């Protein structure tokens, strides 16, 4: 059986200002099985958002393959992309800029159904009402405008619109990062709830490891355009194999002073290198605490260690 999402050796390169292309994504392979939630984590510039954009056809791959339910997106025609976008829907970070301020939220949520001819008139109104209720809003909200809602409510509206076509794959790019702490919990509960109810596949992009652990079944860690480690949630949090995963986990400040202050510090030296001029060999070698000579020359392939796939010579 094919996976809901299958990405193979994806490369996305952007033209650089000074000649060398920016290799934002440089050979990423991953899949999301039916009903599964895959977390994609990493720091700014690691390429996680570019992978998400390529998944819904918002970014054409430079090379490699992106398949949604078996349909290839790389080099696909407009009509194929249009068809795939009905099956793969995206939720962005900022709900304020994701909604047209001059459109009622009923019109915004119903638009995907209307433009694809799935519903109109009374049937459309009923479906919009059901979608709003599904995300915890009320049917009578349909006539209101985005500015009449709080940030958390607006993210609910965006989620309702993404669900309208009953997609097989939901791509969430930092869906709670712009929200206040108390509102974040409401949206996370809603996402977990929707996953359980619809058995939807989800690609969940986030920089927040605690959030990813809370909603995901498996986790992929990206560094500088490549996958460092992919593993089931419990494996990656209990026994991270890649030194970058370990450093990332150690850096998460836990909201518990006793735990946080007892935690061993694994400070990473230096900064993330430029994706226009990535280091040779393992891309993490310039900051790696356990680097050996091999890492400077040889690219570590992803290989199976325990339950994890790790790109490290020393794992």
């Amino acid at each position: 059986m094919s996976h809901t999402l299958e990405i193979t050796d994806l490369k996305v390169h952007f033209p650089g200002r000074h000649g060398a292309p920016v290799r934002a994504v440089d050979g990423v392979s991953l899949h999301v099985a039916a009903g599964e939630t895959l977390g994609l984590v990493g720091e700014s510039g690691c390429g996680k958002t570019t992978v998400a954009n390529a998944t819904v056809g918002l970014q054409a791959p430079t090379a490699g393959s992106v398949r949604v339910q078996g349909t290839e997106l790389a080099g696909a025609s407009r009509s194929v992309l249009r068809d795939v976008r009905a099956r793969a829907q995206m939720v962005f970070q900022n709900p304020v800029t994701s909604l047209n301020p001059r459109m009622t939220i009923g019109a915004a949520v119903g638009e995907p159904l209307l433009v694809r001819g799935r519903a109109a008139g009374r049937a459309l109104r009923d479906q919009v009402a059901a979608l709003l209720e599904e995300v915890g809003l009320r049917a009578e909200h349909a006539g209101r405008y985005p500015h009449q809602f709080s940030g958390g409510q607006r993210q609910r509206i965006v989620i309702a619109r993404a669900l309208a076509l009953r997609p097989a794959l939901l791509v969430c790019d930092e869906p709670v990062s712009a929200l206040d702490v108390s509102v974040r919990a409401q949206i996370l509960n809603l996402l977990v709830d929707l996953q359980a109810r619809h058995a939807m596949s989800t690609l969940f992009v986030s920089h927040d490891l605690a959030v990813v652990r809370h909603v995901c079944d498996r986790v992929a860690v990206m560094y500088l355009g490549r996958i460092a480690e992919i593993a089931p949630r419990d494996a990656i949090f209990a026994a991270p194999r890649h030194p970058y995963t370990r450093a990332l986990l150690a850096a998460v400040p836990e909201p518990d002073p006793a735990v946080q202050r007892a935690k061993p510090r694994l400070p990473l030296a230096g900064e993330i290198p430029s994706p226009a001029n990535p280091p040779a060999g393992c891309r993490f070698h310039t900051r790696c605490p356990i680097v050996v000579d091999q890492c400077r020359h040889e690219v570590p392939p992803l290989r199976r260690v325990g339950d994890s796939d790790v790109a490290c010579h020393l794992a």
Partner: protein
Amino acid sequence: MTPAALTVAALSLDLGPTRLVDGIGFSVAPGEVMALVGESGCGKSVTAQAIMRLLPDAIRQTGGQVRLGEEDLTALPERAMQAIRGRRLSMIFQEPQAALDPLDTIGAQIAEALRQPLSRVRAEVRRMLEDVGISDPERRIDQHPFELSGGMCQRVMIATALIARPAVLIADEPTTALDVTIQAQILDLLRRLAIERRTAVVLITHDMGVVADIADRVCVMYAGRIAEAGPVAEIFAAPMHPYTALLLASIPRLSDVPKSPLAVIAGQVPAPGEYGPGCRFANRCPRAEPRCATTTPPLLAAGQGREIACFAPLADRRAP
């Protein structure tokens, strides 16, 4: 007890007829990190601006005092305040790149905090850059902000803020724009500098993880008031205000059960101007009593250095 480096007493800030900050007070000792934590709109950033006397024109201080050591800053003329900012009282901001002058070298900007040309204080500036963990300071000193990463720019801002050895540093979301591995470096740096230089730090943040990491004490703000204040260890172990408790329970942790429901706070923060006469959390509070909606609970001492503003706290720690 050492005298406080900074004391804020009964501070009130108004935007037209709307009271944004309603009589808050706290103090910070030398070498202590005091976190001001709360969600957007709770008044934590305007409080910082009021301490610096850098409020936007539309917001007025209508009551209270800000004291630096023994000196009341509220009454000082702007000229005297200018001599204090950057020397005895410094501030760092969330967006380091936006806070630095793009046209000036970082060395010159750090020297400016000493009111000296770089040529005269170059050795001192270089030592400060080393102290905040900038590698190769001799080269960096002559570079411009665009040549530095976000994390390095934040180190430069910290160097600028601390080179004159101020008694108090206000850090407004200093790591919010940074990646976690860089955030960890900057938090370690702030804590080390607070201890070594005896700087009193007011850390403004929305992130309970950051508070747990480096703060000694915390003031939890809600809708322009302090809900609860006290030592970080005690408040995290046993929050007394229902807002603090719910806020802590709503954060996903590396230790909780994945996909289990997180605690939620019903409704949303009321907008300034829509506050009722009583406790501002009353309409969202699961423990609210009738009087909570009509009477403002005062902030009272609750033992162990704690203070709480609640008629129905979770565990009543007040002495019998």
